[in-house]
């Protein structure tokens, strides 16, 4: 597009995305320039290539991808844009890695308000800048009304693993400690509180946050004593621990009393018949750490704002059945099972 050609400014305030915004023509170029490049601005995007070129670090890299289809798009504590940045950064960071770059792909429904799209892109840009992880390449598609729900976003992230670190899901060993970085269930309950048919007044904000800073502190304190980390998103802490139990062929024994839950989240769960252990988080991690290093890692986590409520919640045990067991605060024992069925669709 010639820079001199006349073009009508995008009507961000009242305009809507139409099919021409995905057609490859001028309208699409304008949407990308005015909404996305403006919000996510960096050297790579400014070059306008179909790909972003960057130097590859020596050593090991990690790569991850994630799709975001959350409903509603805006929720207390974030929106689909910030979530798409935080979620993918966290998946990279769970390898102990330093996230470097993101890509983003948008599938937008015809008729979607440009103002909302801009708000989402701006939020994404803010989150990426705050995290120091730029979105360096992307794609936009528009589908007919009814073929998507507002906007879906996919992001891919790459990162670099510090030398000597090899976190992996099969590495939990009996005796290892289980450290949780903070309260559980905040994100899921914040989203549910805004669902159309489930509106209730709750002063709960999503915990959506990028955890790579916290992870860097943990790596510095624990190094190779970190066996594996997970961010307990869909399915909650229960799913994260059950996955690790399967992959490491071990069991877990955790204490209900040690798992921090905010009173408002506990109350909402009570009301809705949910178990906070099954409710999604977007700014928490669970780490399996060798026993000798657990205290040092815990101290490092507590020194970070995102880990100030961190706690050792239990330990890895030998168990051929790979059960996640919990001592209830009531005094009895129970299993912490996977969530069965669907608690609430499209939570992230």
């Amino acid at each position, binding site marked *: 597009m010639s820079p001199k050609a006349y073009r009508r400014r995008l009507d961000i305030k009242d305009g809507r995305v139409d099919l021409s915004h995905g057609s490859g023509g001028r309208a699409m170029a304008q949407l990308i320039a005015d909404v996305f490049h403006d919000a996510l601005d960096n050297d790579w995007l400014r070059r306008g290539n179909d790909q972003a070129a960057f130097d590859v670090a020596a050593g090991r890299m990690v790569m991850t991808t994630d799709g975001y289809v959350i409903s509603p798009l805006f929720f207390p504590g974030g929106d689909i844009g910030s979530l798409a940045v935080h979620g993918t950064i966290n998946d990279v960071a769970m390898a102990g890695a330093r996230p470097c770059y993101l890509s983003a792909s948008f599938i937008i429904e015809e008729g979607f308000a440009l103002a909302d799209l801009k708000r989402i892109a701006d939020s994404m840009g803010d989150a990426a800048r705050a995290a120091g992880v730029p979105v360096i390449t992307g794609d936009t598609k528009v589908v007919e009304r009814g073929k998507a729900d507002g906007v879906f976003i996919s992001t891919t992230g790459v990162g670099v693993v510090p030398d000597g670190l090899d976190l992996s899901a099969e590495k939990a060993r009996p005796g290892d400690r289980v450290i949780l970085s903070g309260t559980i269930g905040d994100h899921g309950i914040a989203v549910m509180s805004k669902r159309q048919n489930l509106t209730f007044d709750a002063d709960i904000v999503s915990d959506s946050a990028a955890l790579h800073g916290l992870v860097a502190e943990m790596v510095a304190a624990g190094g190779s004593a970190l066996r594996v980390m997970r961010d307990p998103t869909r399915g909650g802490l229960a799913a994260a621990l059950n996955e690790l139990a399967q992959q490491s062929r071990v069991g877990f024994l955790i204490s209900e009393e040690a798992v921090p839950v905010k009173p408002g989240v506990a109350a909402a769960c009570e009301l809705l018949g949910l178990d906070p252990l099954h409710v999604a988080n977007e700014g928490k991690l669970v780490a399996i750490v060798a026993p000798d290093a657990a205290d040092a890692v815990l101290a490092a986590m507590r020194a970070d704002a995102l880990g100030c409520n961190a706690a050792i919640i239990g330990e890895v045990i030998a168990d051929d059945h790979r059960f996640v067991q919990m001592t*209830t605060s009531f*005094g009895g*024992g129970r299993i912490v099972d996977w969530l*069965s069925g669907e608690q609430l669709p499209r939570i992230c």
Partner: protein
Amino acid sequence: MKYVDEYRDGRLARALAARIANAADAAGSYHFMEFCGGHTHAISRYGLEDLLPANVRMIHGPGCPVCVLPVGRIDAAIRLAERPEVTLCTYGDVMRVPGSHGTSLLRAKAAGADIRMVYSTLDAVRIAQAEPQREIVFFAIGFETTTPPTALAIRLAAEKRLENFSVFCNHVLTPAAIQNILESPDVRELGRVRIDGFIGPAHVSTVIGTEPYAFFAEEFEKPVVVAGFEPLDVMLAILMLIRQVNEGRHEVENQYVRAVKPQGNAKAKAEVAEIFELRKSFEWRGLGLVPYSGLRLKEAYAQYDAERRFGVEYVAARDNSACECGAILRGVKKPIDCKLFGTVCTPETPMGSCMVSAEGACAAHWTYGRFRDRTRRAS
């Protein structure tokens, strides 16, 4: 959480456990049935088994609304939902209950039926108002606790003159089911199930009160203690039952005094009586046909009765032949006695209804307690 945490206090639980252990006669044993799924869930969720002496055994009763719904009623609901003009509104738990031939409402929905999950009967009324061109059918299930909200929805629909709202009524009555269990050959003649007393319903009793249980206490000489759904409620009720047994008493006692009055909730009962009447009999999964145990809409409200409106024919259907839900609901068998339990029947792929609801005996044991089976059977 105020008014909740107090009833889950671990220190009080240990003290109560010690008193139960003291009260229980070591030479004898105690078999109590908790009728309600809410109690079953609390027992499993808080690991009460670990706090009770070995000679106190809890038998899980049929008081789980989803579990007692017979296959034929699910089939009928699916047929209703498959009608192009119908939107079927239902509580979430029911979605996964297996019907005949591997069907369920969840699968019918995936295949295109308009089935919507609601959290309240009023949501269904709102949908009927918002979408006058659709026939909104509320799939009503549950005991005396969920019946008043259904009655309220029907009254509201009548007040608003909604012509596209109806109810597929499957409401059932607790006392009739308890009587059926006590009269069953398993308990009476064969002695296969020993029941020394009942933990009476919590929420149901807030509506019907404690008076309806007096008959069982007298006629069948079984103590009944109405108890709340919190774990300390259940433990205190167990202690009260043990004392009654030890003293040879069989009375109706109320542990749940903070919510249950002897005469119940007169307003809710009146609301139900205005709209519903007894069916001659109703099929329960596990119990079969139980006389005067189910409700239907009165003639005056016939236009809100989906069975009349759509000419629903009830066709009884068989459970999977290996499924032991029936025997489990009667207390004859435990989940672990079922060949399907934990093999092909899990909460993800339930074969029987006891595996569907979190209140079902099988789902509760699978989800919370199966680690105790290690010594009994390789999982």
